[in-house]
């Protein structure tokens, strides 16, 4: 009962909030006090993309206990796939007016489109890659990691290494992804100009819809028998093995799904912020995303969405008001939440009654363990 209530509230907030912002932007005259300016719409769209990433992280961290410190890599890969499509959409409108080659390739003296850029002039192909590239990378990574029973801190460290290695690779000009500068100066998506306010409203609404679908998918997965096995693996992996389960195949499945969700989030992110560059792979990004989940409430799905939106609201405000304080603030926030709100902000709403007290004790022990893992 309570869980159904939570999902209705979550979907209502995401979809209702997005529609409300859209209406206040498009239908209310600019002069009115109720008008929502364009930048708020695109910032909201960005937060929703972050919420998709947070949801993906909660699926693996909250339910099967994989503390990923590299999930932004999948987000960025999805973003790059979308960026490649947007670059090719520019066509001859670039600075060098080359109908095939993106500006940065002309600039470094290339005269032929590399093979791995073929097909990105088609939107459907880019969409396929948005899911496939993060998905395949996650599958291969997970296949090796889970089969050799790498877990806990060691797994966290190699996820961090994964995103760092990708960052270094994408920084190189001769990778053919724009190097240091990445990709930007996008003109339009599917023929809709990116600087039009209707396009940003459309993208923001699309992001809200995708987030809702991802939430429903994650919820269905975690509430099925599959989800029960995930929790069983998280809390007593060897018990599941002696019952005849192969924890590695469960981890691999949910890990790959999670990477695809993160990639889709990244693909929605790029047209809304107008740029993708290697700094999206920075290890700090992945860690920050884990903190959103911890703040909202790990293992609840709705908490991940709530945490991503609230922490980023705080970040937007703080980085303009007191930019030098931000890193201390997020570090402090993480410590405070771990010590005082081990079930996250969601725990404040759900945390009443005798059942909740027992749950709280257990969760605080789990959160302490998680914090020790992060601290190391």
């Amino acid at each position, binding site marked *: 009962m309570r869980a159904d209530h939570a999902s209705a509230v979550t979907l209502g907030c995401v979809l209702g909030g997005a529609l409300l912002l859209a209406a206040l932007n498009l239908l209310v005259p600019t002069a009115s006090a109720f008008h929502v300016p364009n930048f708020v719409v695109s910032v909201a769209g960005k937060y929703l993309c972050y919420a998709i990433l947070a949801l993906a992280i909660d699926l693996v961290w909250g339910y099967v206990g994989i503390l990923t410190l590299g999930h932004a890599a999948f987000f960025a890969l999805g973003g790059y796939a979308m960026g490649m499509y947007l670059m090719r959409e520019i066509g001859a409108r670039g600075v060098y007016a080359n109908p095939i080659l993106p500006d940065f390739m002309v600039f470094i003296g290339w005269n032929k489109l590399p093979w791995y850029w073929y097909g990105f002039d088609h939107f459907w192909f880019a969409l396929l890659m948005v899911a496939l590239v993060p998905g395949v990378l996650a599958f291969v990574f997970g296949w090796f990691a889970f089969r050799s029973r790498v877990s806990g801190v060691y797994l966290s460290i190699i996820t961090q290494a994964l995103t760092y290695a990708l960052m270094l690779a994408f920084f190189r000009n001769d990778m053919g992804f724009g190097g240091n500068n990445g990709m930007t100066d996008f003109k339009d998506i599917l023929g809709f100009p990116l600087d039009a306010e209707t396009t940003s409203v459309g993208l923001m609404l699309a992001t809200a819809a995708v987030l809702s679908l991802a939430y429903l998918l994650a919820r269905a997965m975690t509430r*099925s028998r599959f989800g029960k096995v995930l929790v*069983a693996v998280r809390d*007593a992996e060897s018990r599941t093995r002696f019952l005849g389960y192969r924890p590695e195949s469960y981890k691999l499945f949910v890990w790959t799904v999670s990477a695809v969700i993160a990639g889709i989030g990244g693909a929605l992110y790029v047209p809304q912020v107008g740029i993708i560059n290697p700094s999206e792979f920075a290890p700090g990004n992945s860690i920050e995303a884990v903190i959103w989940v911890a703040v909202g409430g790990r293992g609840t799905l709705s908490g991940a969405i709530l945490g991503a939106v609230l922490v980023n609201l705080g970040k937007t405000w703080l980085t303009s008001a007191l930019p030098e304080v931000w890193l201390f603030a997020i570090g402090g926030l993480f410590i405070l939440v771990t010590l005082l709100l081990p079930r996250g902000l969601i725990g404040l709403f759900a945390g009443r009654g005798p059942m909740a007290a*027992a749950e709280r004790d257990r969760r605080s022990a789990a959160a302490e363990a998680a914090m020790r893992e992060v601290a190391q």
Partner: protein
Amino acid sequence: MKEPTLLYLDGVTVSFDGFKALDDLSLVLEPGEMRAVIGPNGAGKTTMMDVITGKTRPDEGHVVFGADIDLRKLDEPAIARLGIGRKFQRPTVFEPLSVRDNLLLALAGDRSPRFALAARETARERMRIDELLATIRLSDERDRRAADLSHGQKQWLEIGMLLAQDPKLLLVDEPVAGMTDAETAATAELLREINRSRSVVVVEHDMAFVRALGVKVTVLHEGRVLAEGSIDTIQNNARVIEVYLGR
């Protein structure tokens, strides 16, 4: 024709950094048998369980299940699916899940993620769970979270999970550690009940409990079998008294 032995360990040796946890251990278990294994700390009881369940690979020797299944070549899930269930020393159940969900996950059946994603609880599963709940005396606790059970109840739940797997052989590591006298007596009763249809190996320290089981006893010492026989023969064996009982 004689029925083949259920479990056959021959000359099994396991060493960790030169320390021989098992040293040329041999043991034969007949189908339907219940066996108690005793021995001082470090005698190799848990290592023996690890070898049988695929957690540890022996350096030497044979481990055969049924007529001709070589357990050395299989990993834990594969061995579990063959029908060998293992109960840990410390009760290990899925704490956040309800008692009945713990049993549901343990029920014999398809273990693949693809199956689990689409699985709906069947009437047959519901019936099996109700039977198991009655056997392990937890019918009234079915909807409670496993985390909220008492220590003894968790031990039973774990035994129930093993039964749900429908194993041919159950390995039970110190089932009555930390139990009250009443719980210990109930557990002995439960194991005898289980033994009516399955073979059981019980590792235990508690001599009163082993006596209550009334089965053949194997004494391990320094990775070898020191003695084997009824509880009375064992308790009068001079070497057993020297290394174990006398202390």
